[in-house]
């Protein structure tokens, strides 16, 4: 029997070097460029590390998962319905604070997350030092410093992916404390969400999105298989790999 192929999703703000990392990992030559919005559909490639085959999916860069636009929906739906085995959130070392906003949102959706802090070389030049150990402890997920374009830290990243995919890493993702009002709402909705949707989806996150009145999410949840068709060819190929 063939070994399982694990799916690894790349997420991150626009222009943090996801596509560069994707190219390094897969050896493909997806076009990269120094400007936001380069990747609008997702690209796929394969990567083999220590005998395991990984399917790498490069998702469009987004600032949030609040489904303001088609590309944010692509990223959100992929996390929700394809449930990658590992999600790498690529963050820009030179703008960590802003980049963490998305990372925190991803942590609410899945606990199988690795934070790859990219552009470490640039940060070093700017005199920015990041305590990755402390950050990992705070976030409750592995944090790996890399420089994708200089191919630094890639092995460490892949080792972490390997460990997480094979269940050797236990994570304890940071859960954002919201205002008492919101937390009360979540507490009330949580049992109802679990009732209707079971354990398939991240219940706390869905409760939060419902409070925010995210109707596009609700539409997607009502017809889980349909979002796969919506994106046409780009999605059809993914839908077949792993059933929802």
């Amino acid at each position, binding site marked *: 029997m063939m070994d399982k192929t694990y799916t690894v999703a790349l997420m991150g703000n626009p222009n943090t070097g996801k596509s560069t990392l994707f190219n390094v990992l897969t050896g493909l030559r997806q076009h990269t460029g120094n400007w936001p919005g380069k990747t609008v559909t997702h690209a796929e490639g394969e990567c083999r590390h220590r005998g395991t085959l990984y399917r790498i999916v490069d998702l*469009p860069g987004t600032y949030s998962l609040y489904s303001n636009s088609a*590309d944010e929906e692509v990223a959100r739906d992929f996390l929700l319905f394809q449930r990658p085995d590992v999600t790498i959130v690529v963050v820009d070392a030179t703008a960590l604070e802003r980049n963490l906003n998305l990372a925190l949102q991803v942590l609410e959706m899945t606990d199988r997350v690795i934070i790859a802090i990219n552009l470490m070389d640039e940060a070093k030049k700017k005199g920015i030092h990041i305590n990755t150990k402390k950050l990992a402890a705070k976030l409750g997920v592995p944090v790996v410093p890399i420089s994708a374009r200089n191919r630094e830290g890639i092995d460490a990243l892949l080792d972490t992916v390997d460990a997480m995919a094979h269940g050797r890493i236990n994570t304890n993702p940071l859960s954002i404390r919201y205002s008492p009002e919101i937390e009360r709402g979540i507490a009330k909705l949580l049992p109802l969400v679990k009732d*209707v949707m079971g354990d398939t989806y991240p219940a706390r996150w869905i409760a939060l999105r419902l409070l925010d009145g995210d109707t596009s999410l609700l539409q997607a949840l009502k017809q889980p298989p349909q979002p796969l068709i919506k994106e046409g060819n780009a999605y059809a190929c993914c839908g077949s790999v792993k059933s929802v």
Partner: protein
Amino acid sequence: MPAADLSNQFDQLMNEAKSLAPADTREQIVSAIFQTSAALSQECVTHTAVAKRDRTEQIDRIVTSKRWGFPIMLALLAAVLYMTIAGANVFSDSLARLFGTIETYLTMAFQAIHAPDWLHGLIVLGLYRGTAWVVSVMLPPMAIFFPVFALLENYGYLPRVAFNMDRLFQKAGAHGKQSLTMAMGFGCNAAAIMSTRIIESPRERMLAILTNNFVPCNGRWPTLILLSSLFMAAGYTGGWKTFVTAGVVVAMVLFGIVVTLTVSWVLSKTALRGIPTHYTLELPPYRRPKIMETIIRATLDKSLYVLKRAVTVAAPAGVITWILANLHIGDTTALAAFAHWLDPFAKALGLDGYILMAFILGLPANEIVVPILLMGYLSAGALIEADGLHSLKQLLLDHGWTWLTALNMMLFSLLHYPCGTTLVNIYKETKSAKWTFVAFALPTAIAIAVTFTTAQLARWLGLV
């Protein structure tokens, strides 16, 4: 569980959520996230040596300033084009000579094996000569233009272009992000259509889709550069000639942008009425690109890609064109008949039947318009040796070209319908046959109107 039941439960859930949600839910959520991020980075990030001010900011203060933004943009574009044109002249000629020599040997080989005339005609005069023309006139400018352009792109300049253009697009009633998708169109319109997904509002996205075609893509840059260098600076010599040539191409790009803005403005006042939405455009820091890697990748990915597309489509087109040119209907050939039939209309646009035919047959890809045109001309009797730009110009002059023909072909190329791939993407993205047709018909109508006007004006003023 029946679907209706499930749907009901969802609706109940939504209603429940609505009743629980405070009025400023989004603000509360966002501020909680932001506070958490801020606290985290406060604890984990330390700054040392904040001595020199951020260089990116310093550069941006100049290149995105109101006074210098546009002049710098134009100067950079002109500089890139100048390098392209000056450099291309040099090795276009030697490349053509090389192909000419090979052709002589090929012909000798065909004679040696006593191949029939029609086979020699088909393979050497049709397939080989057509392809050789394409390679020698299109490869040199592409080999210079694309790598240089890619260096600018990877350095991070394109978002600054978008930033500069942003205000203009807002004034035209369009989304500022349209300037980004437009910038992407300079590479490939088909890809840019996909990139319009970054625009949230459907109305503004449609504007971006409908007008994307008005900036020249990879397939059309070579056409513009070639025609401009052949015809637009005839009265100048040396460095000035190159300068004027580059200037004309810059003017073409500017005209394309003006058309983009005008069409956006008119549509946003009529068929696609609405108010532009606000957004934040992030300017990424300048990053020194890996120079050799960028050059190699641009050469492989773009120059060779475009060339491959041109040759793979041009080679069969060369054969078909040759067959059509040798297929006699009465006392004329099929090709000549088709071109002749188009001629009256084409002449009114300042073009000729062959040019219009090349545009029509070139629908699948803009790269093959010039190749088809050359093959059409070559098959029509003027079998001259392919020895570079001079004989190319002679070939065009023999077919009655003037500066007006060149200008109008450039204008038509800039403004006409998008290529087949782009149209397919437009259909995929809009899911509407109607809007796809608009995306085809609107640019075509504008192309016809503009070329008709320039042709009539030039003739009326007695300029040609």
